[in-house]
């Protein structure tokens, strides 16, 4: 009888272990901007996610912005997050998320031959050089955002500081062209697709672009926490393999029409307005999701120099590109 009990207990333990091994890892991925973040479009190509439901499950969650995303990561309610370079520094230094790791690229600004964010003034404003912005109102989508840091860096290069020399006025990015044209702001950031606004192009003029302010910018990166990566490395490599496969598909010019239809369905904007998407008119996206860590280090240093974080952050020490490299290598086999 005792032997029978032992055998039953052993069988139960084995069954539980097997079940635990078979359980796919739950990955929650954030996105903020539709289409621009891979998280918003990945599940549109489920047919390419060969490991989905086997080694991992995927929930994509829309967040209002960076603060909510950082809070979710801190509370372990999010495994893979999209963050701007400045938010990455803020998450590590201010929120104390020292175990945060850069795992992949989302997009980069200012790569030669690709789009770079533009900063507009009105043609009739009399502002012809950055120094002319002294005493003016500058539009921003929020202190410490990627474009906000770029503006401050450019003005700082030309000896202008906020409060002393200019005033920042917050507004949402889609409202920026209206803020400029209605003379509520004298300089605005124009990001895609709002920089295609015909009235802005007609009545506005580019004073400088982001490349002049920051050089190449590693704008958005994918991040995850080290304990999660270490615990679920195999599933994460499978996930990255699927993501790289999906990215290959989206960036392939022969799929462009279908990509425009997907973007249209997500944003309720006619597909013909997405002619620029994932082309050279768009910001650069690495086909194997490899981020530019050198640029990221520079961008994070600029964020610190402008006072948004106190301590120096070693980007290489906060990166783990082994997942994405292994995933890309698998696809090349």
């Amino acid at each position, binding site marked *: 009888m005792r032997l029978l009990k032992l055998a039953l207990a052993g069988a139960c333990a084995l069954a539980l272990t097997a079940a635990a091994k078979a359980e796919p890892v739950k990955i929650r991925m954030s996105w903020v901007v539709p289409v621009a973040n891979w998280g918003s479009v990945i599940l549109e190509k489920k047919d390419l996610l060969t490991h989905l439901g086997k080694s991992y499950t995927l929930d994509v969650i829309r967040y209002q912005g960076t603060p909510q995303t*950082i809070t979710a990561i*801190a509370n372990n309610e999010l495994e893979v997050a999209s963050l701007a370079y400045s938010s990455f520094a*803020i998450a590590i230094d*201010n*929120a104390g998320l020292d175990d945060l790791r850069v795992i992949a690229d989302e997009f980069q600004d200012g790569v030669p031959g690709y789009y770079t964010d533009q900063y507009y003034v009105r043609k009739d404003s009399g502002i012809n050089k950055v120094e002319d912005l002294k005493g003016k109102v500058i539009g921003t989508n*929020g*202190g*410490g955002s990627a474009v906000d840091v770029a503006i401050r860096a450019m003005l700082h290069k030309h000896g202008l500081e906020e409060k002393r020399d200019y005033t920042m006025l917050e507004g949402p990015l889609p*409202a920026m062209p209206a803020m400029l044209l*209605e003379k509520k702001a004298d300089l605005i950031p124009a990001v895609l697709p709002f920089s295609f606004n015909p009235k802005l192009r007609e009545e506005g003029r580019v004073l400088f672009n982001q490349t002049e302010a920051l050089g190449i910018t590693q704008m958005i990166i994918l991040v995850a926490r080290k304990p999660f990566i270490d615990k679920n490395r195999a599933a994460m490599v499978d996930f990255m393999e699927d993501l790289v496969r999906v990215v290959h598909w989206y960036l392939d010019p022969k799929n462009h029409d279908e990509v425009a239809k997907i973007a249209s369905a997500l944003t309720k904007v006619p597909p013909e307005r997405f002619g620029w998407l994932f082309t050279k008119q768009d910001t650069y996206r690495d086909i194997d999701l490899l981020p530019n860590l050198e640029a990221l280090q520079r961008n994070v240093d600029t964020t610190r120099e402008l006072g948004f974080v106190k301590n120096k952050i070693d980007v290489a020490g906060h990166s783990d590109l082994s997942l994405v490299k292994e995933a890309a290598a698998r696809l090349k086999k």
Partner: protein
Amino acid sequence: MARVTATDRPNGWPEKAARIAVTLYWGAARAVSVVVLLAAWELLARSGMFTHYQLPALSDVIERIWRDGLSGDLWINTALTLYRALTAFCICAVGGVLIGMAMSRNVIANWFFDPIVSVGFPMPKIAFLPVVILWLGVFDVSKITIIVIDAIFPVIAATVIAIQGVEKELIWSARNMGASNRELLTQVILPAASPQIMTGLQVALPLSLIVAVVAEMLMGGYGLGGAMITASRFANSTGVFAGIVEIAVVGYALVKIMALARRRLLIWHQEANAPSTA
């Protein structure tokens, strides 16, 4: 807990001193729950159960408020939030009472406003914010407008109910004594309705502050709500909690001032000593 009253004073104590002692005793007794909450906050934050980002210590938050006070940011942000909330509150007080009076005394006004008030009162008015921004921009006018849209309804409703609830005998007596319509309104109806109108204003004032903070959080810029959202953007939870404490203190002060004003304004009325939020 033994209940202490002014009549329980020890022999030989002057009456005034006894009254002060009782006031202090009850004041301290009412603060116990707040003190316990604050102590629990400090202990929990220092226990290691939470990261500093999730729950900063109360002492750090107080230090942050102190630094904001020294730098002047606290006063600028508080003044701006109060300016928006109080300007909107004054508009609500005047507009709400006038509309309420009109609805109670005039059939056409009632016919016109009643459906608007009935539909608008239960609506989440903050949903109008994108439209208000579209029409009025992102500056003070739009913030004050959204506060007025939100806070005017309790004043209108309280005024209508108050005027409709005035005892008919008072009105008949005044009429019998030859009071004109104007005298009836200013000397009988409004004074008799004023306790309930004040109750509506007591609801509208904290509501004005709440909506001011929410509007600032959603629209950015200076003000207590704007400062909180900026702190949140920089993952500075000490700043966020500092904002919560500051708003709590400002809100409490406003409610107390309003209760005091009620007692002063309605000193002649039997309800004056029983304000709803005192």
